[in-house]
Structures are given as C-alpha cells and as structure tokens.
C-alpha cells in the first residue's frame, strides 16, 4: 500500500506544504501567504495540498516541519531547521547545486553544499529584513505598484540609480524622496533591486561563491531580483519551477527518510491544534495558493 509523507515549512510570511508518496513522487505542493508567522497560511497550504493529493490528514504516515514556526506544528513528528531542509530540497530539485540563495518573506540565507548535497557553510540575515520579501512589499506600497509588477518594471531601468538604504522601513523614506526629486518609478525600482543584490552578495561572500548556484524563496519569482543577483555574482542562477517549496520539499524528504528507516520521533511540545476541521475553510480561499505540482522526486 502506498504511504505518504508531509513536509511543512512554517515560514515568516508564508506556509508551504509538500506531500510525497513512499516512492518519492511529489503528489502535492502548495504555498499560501497570510501574513507574518501565521498558522492560518500553514492550514491553507496543508488543506490545499491534501485536497489536491486526494488525501485525508490521517493518511499521512510521517510529517517533518521546518521554518521559524516549526515548533508550532503539532502534527509534526520532528523538526529540522530551514537550513538543512532548504539544502536538501534544493539539492533534490537541482542535483549538483553547490550554492543556494534563499530569499523569503523576512529572512535570507545562503547555503554552500558539498558534492553529497550536505551543508558545508551557511549564513543568514540577522534581525534585518533588508532585501527580503518584506522589503519589496514595503516599497511596492510606497511606489503604489503591484508586488508582481515590480520586477518587470525594474528590468526597464537604465540609469543605475543608487538606493542606499537597505532598511525595509527607511528605504520607503528614501524612495519617496527620490520620487519627489523627479525620479521615475522604473529607475527607482532598478536601484532598489540593485541594492538588494549588493546586500545578497555580502551574505554570499561570508559563505564563499561556488557554482552552480540556485535561487529559491519567493523573491526568486522576481525577474529583476534574479537579474541583478546574476549581474552581481557574474553567474547564471538556476531557478526551480516552484522556488518557494524547497524548504517544505526538504522537510518531506526527511520525513521520507524516517519512513524508510521507521525511525521513532520524540513528540514536540504542544502547540496550535490542527486537525481536519481546521481545513474546511480551504475552499473559500483556494485562489491564494499555488497549484499542485506533480513531479517525480526520487
């Protein structure tokens, strides 16, 4: 009988869920954004994943959670940090990858991998959301553009405008000042993305540049972010089809390891209850989650 495992990434602004079958095939992958460290986004992602997989929660044999909220996922059999999970997930999606740049809602990390896909070194931002999804959200509001419009607009910039503030809050002030001086939104956006790339380069330098390089996390969906990081790094980035699920996929792969080893996990501290009843609201907010992805994950 086929069994299923679940990986949950309880991130700073999004919840992600990936379901694998016992042969390692990915049967569902969902992303939901509801706000900072919100269990609701995890419930939505999980509910959508189960629905797309045609499963009930009690059919999940093993669950591993990751992300900052990993200890809040009561159903998890164990937790693994997002460093290990992102590395595992990215190495699975892109065999042979040596450097993973993950820029999410509030955190950014760079992970160097060895030939076996194991973490060699990592670096993370420290209590500063500069250059992360939160940074772009703030600026999108300041510039009155859609978050998904920012990247395509920024790619049209030609002037290399300098945006010096990396603070997600103070960058808003600087951007408003630039607009008041007559700068166009396109040029400001170009400068903002270049600044983010420079900051990312600093994080990469702490780990050491190596090839091939992949980018994961929500900001990887921003073409201008990718372009400017590629320019700063002088190398092409490999982008997985669904860049936000790397962590949840890694968690699911660890769950699959457990299933295959029949390892017994230590129960985690009690947290937010999450049972089938909590998933009934999924249908109302279906539009906020990404479609299921069926791909072979061996």
């Amino acid at each position: 009988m086929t069994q299923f495992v679940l990986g949950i990434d309880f991130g700073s602004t999004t919840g992600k869920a990936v379901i694998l079958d016992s042969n390692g095939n990915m049967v569902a992958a969902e992303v939901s954004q509801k706000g900072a460290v919100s269990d609701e986004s995890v419930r939505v992602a999980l509910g959508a994943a189960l629905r797309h997989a045609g499963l009930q929660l009690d059919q999940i044999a093993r669950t591993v959670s990751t992300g900052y909220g990993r200890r809040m996922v009561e159903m998890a059999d164990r937790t693994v940090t997002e460093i290990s999970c992102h590395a595992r997930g990215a190495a699975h999606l892109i065999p042979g990858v040596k450097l993973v740049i993950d820029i999410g809602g509030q955190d950014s990390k760079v992970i160097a991998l060895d030939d076996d896909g194991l973490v060699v070194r990592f670096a993370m931002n420290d209590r500063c959301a500069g250059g992360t999804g939160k940074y772009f959200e703030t600026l999108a509001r300041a510039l009155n553009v859609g978050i998904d419009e920012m990247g395509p607009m920024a790619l049209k910039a030609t002037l290399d405008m300098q945006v010096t503030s990396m603070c997600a809050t103070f960058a808003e002030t600087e951007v408003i000042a630039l607009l008041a001086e007559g700068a166009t939104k396109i040029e400001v956006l170009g400068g903002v993305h270049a600044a983010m790339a420079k900051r990312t380069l600093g994080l990469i330098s702490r780990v050491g540049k190596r090839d091939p390089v992949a980018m994961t996390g929500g900001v990887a969906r921003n073409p201008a972010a990718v372009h400017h990081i590629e320019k700063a790094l002088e190398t092409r980035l490999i982008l997985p089809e669904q860049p936000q699920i790397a962590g949840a996929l890694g968690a699911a792969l660890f769950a699959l390891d457990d299933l295959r080893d029949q390892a017994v996990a230590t129960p985690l501290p009690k947290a937010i209850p999450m049972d089938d009843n909590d998933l009934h609201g999924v249908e109302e907010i279906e539009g906020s989650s990404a479609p299921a992805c069926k791909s072979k994950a061996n």
Partner: protein
Amino acid sequence: METLSMNITAATQKKSNRLQTTKLNNRMVSEYWESLFRAPEEGRLVCWYEGIQLNPILQAADIAWCHGEAMSALLAARHEEGPSQQAAEEAGYDRELCSYARTHVGCAVMTQRSTPEEVSSLPADSSELKGLASRIPVPDMIISAYPFCSTGQQWDDVIYRTFGKKVPIFNISMPWIWGNKPSAKYMSGPEFRESVDFMVKQLKECIRFIEAITGKPYDHDRLNEVMTYIKRAAEIRLEAMDLCKARPSPANFFEWTNSIAPVNFLPGGQEIVDYFEKKKAEIQQRINEGVGSVPEEKYRLFWDGIMNWNKIGWLADKFAQYDACVVSGRYTHLGFWQEPQVIDLESPLDGMAQNFLTCPISISAPQVTEKIVQHCRDFEIDGLLLHGARTCRAFSYPQHLIADAVGKRLNMPVAMFEGDMVDESYYKDEIVNSRVEAMLEQIEARRARSA
C-alpha cells in the same frame, strides 16, 4: 543519499550540571564589591579603569579599584543593568555604543549624582538608586590601558569628563600586535619585544603617577607578592581547563565565564589560589566519576566571542538541552593571565606586559585563528559557534575571518549569531535556536556520512 538522523530537539528538562565551586566565586565577588563600596570610609583611594588587569599594580599601593567591564557584567548577571544603561542613554550615550561602556558610564553618571531627571527623580529609598550601579565610590584616579579598542580608550576619557575633568588620568598606549612580518610569531620576534618594552616603560611611568597621588613610595615587594598569588592561581586555572579535554567535559564555557573574576579583578591572595585548587579538584573528581557538565554530551562546541552576561545560566541550560557541551571559548581560554609562565616574580612587569599584549583582542586575526585551530584540535571540538556582540567591534571584527579559516582548516561546521554582552535587547532566542540547531544537524550529517 543515506538516511540522515538529524533530530535535534531541545529536551527542556535537562539542565547544565553546575560546579559547586562556582558558589564560592559568587561569594568572593560579592565580598569584593562590598569592600570597594567601603573603601572611602576606610581611607583607601579608588581607581577606575577598564580593559587589562591593572589590579595587582593598584593592590600593591593599597588602592581600591573598580574595573568597568566587571561592574557592567555583574549588573547584567544580576539583571540590574537597566537603571545605569538608561542613565547613560539619557546622558547622550547611544545604544549602539559598547554596552559595557554605556553601562559603566551610566554608573558614573549615577555616582556623580548628576543623573537625568527620570533616574534622579526616583525616591531616595528606591531599590534602583540603592542598586549596585549607584554605589561605586567616586574615583581618585583613572588609568586607561585598553588594548586595540578605541572605544575602550575613549571610555576612560568619558569617565574623566563625567567627573568634571578633575580626576587625574593616566593613559597607557597599548600597541596592537600586527604579527604580519615574517619575524613576528606569537610572543616572539622583534615586533613583540619592542611592544613589551614599550609597555613596561609605561607601566613604570604609571607607577610614578600612582606615587604622586598616594604620596608614598611604591611597594614593589608587595607587587611581587601579589603577582605570586595571581601567577599560581592562573597556572592552576589553566591546569583545570586542560582537564576538560576529557570526555565528557567536566566543566563548560559558562562555568569558566563565571570564574573570570578571580583572574580578572579580584585581589591577588591565597583566596584565589584556593578557589582554583578547589575548582580543579572538583573537576578531577568529576573525571574520576565520569560526570559531565551536561547530562548527555553528544556535541563539543567552541564559543568565540564575549559572553551574554544577562543570560549565562539560561544559555548553559539551553546547550544542555541540546546535549551540547560548550567546552571552551576565546574569551575565557585565551585571556586573563593566559601565559603565566613568562612572569618573573622577582621583576613581574615584563611578564605582565606580555600577558596584556597577548589578550585575545590585542593580537591579530591570524594569530588568534592559529590559537583557536590548535585549541579546537586539542579539545576535540565538533563545531564553532560565534557570538557577534552587537556593540563590541573589537571582539567581533575578526569573526568572519575566524569562521572561514577555522571552518575550512578543520572542516568544521560553523554558526554565527548576533547578541550582546550586557544589553539583552540585542539577543533573540529563536535566531540562536535556528543557527545552533542547523549547526548540530550539520555535525550529525557528517557523522552519518563517516559511519
């Protein structure tokens, strides 16, 4: 890929196995500060200083002393740092300033009784005004001898200005040991010898400064006697630290942090020798009985950086919960009379200067890195944890270099996190959790691969 067991879960019921001897240290520290508070009524002059261990020089002249970092650390450890930090900030000393300096400057402000309104408006019998921070006696002299850190040097000047520029101040310039010439080795080479000679010359001038204030000839025999006790205490301490190569380690970094006082600022006497004898004996007994400083030692870690003084006990228990023993650290194991063998008790100034100039922020990154690499090999360290104190650039500046060099040379997992030495607001628990857990997962993964 083979299955990797990386179930890093904090077992919250586990606690660090504290040494009994540490209680003795706590008592000695309390008694010392009380004796300082009584110094004016006992007719003793008081010196304020920061940085290197000038206390034996002062002790020989029967001068009481207040070591700035020690007072700041004490306040933080007792969670009494709030009023002085607030007083300093209100007096214009920014939160980004070295928190040791900010806390101690706040003490100066409170001592001077020129406190800003919010603090001075407290009732006279308030526990805050009665707190440690406001009890330090006004200095009769200030001696500035801070290695490498320019903030430290300016800190003494700020104290001088806080007391109206009326307190005599003596400045000792401590050359930083660059160590980049081919002839420059750790504690040897022309560069080092020139720096030591320069330091000794200034220490002698400082002694003349003390004589001018006390009005008495300096008692060099007394200095020799004090240094006899300090040297012996330092030797025993190093022997006790060396015993922690044992598995499981009988003592951890947090224990050694709690035992800095006797080799940093407590008076040189039989008491500090006895303290380390007792500590060493207790550690040896643990080795004999196979008792470790954490309930289950799965990982041995090295801590680079200053301590979070507000959270020592809490951090000790945290690592115990992860089955990780923080065996040693740069702050504790590479500093505080770390080279006692060079002290000639007949003429101690040269050996003292050598120790001052080889404290962990006085030597260059390559020399520090080399010492850490060797230390990690000797103590069979599994992972390097770096605490970047937000307000201490002097300790933090080489940390990326150390992380990179040590990580590569020893093929060792490394994790860094930001915190602070006495400002708790810079410390965030979950950030530390994530990084420590990720490092422990790396250790597990490597072990699984090697198996």
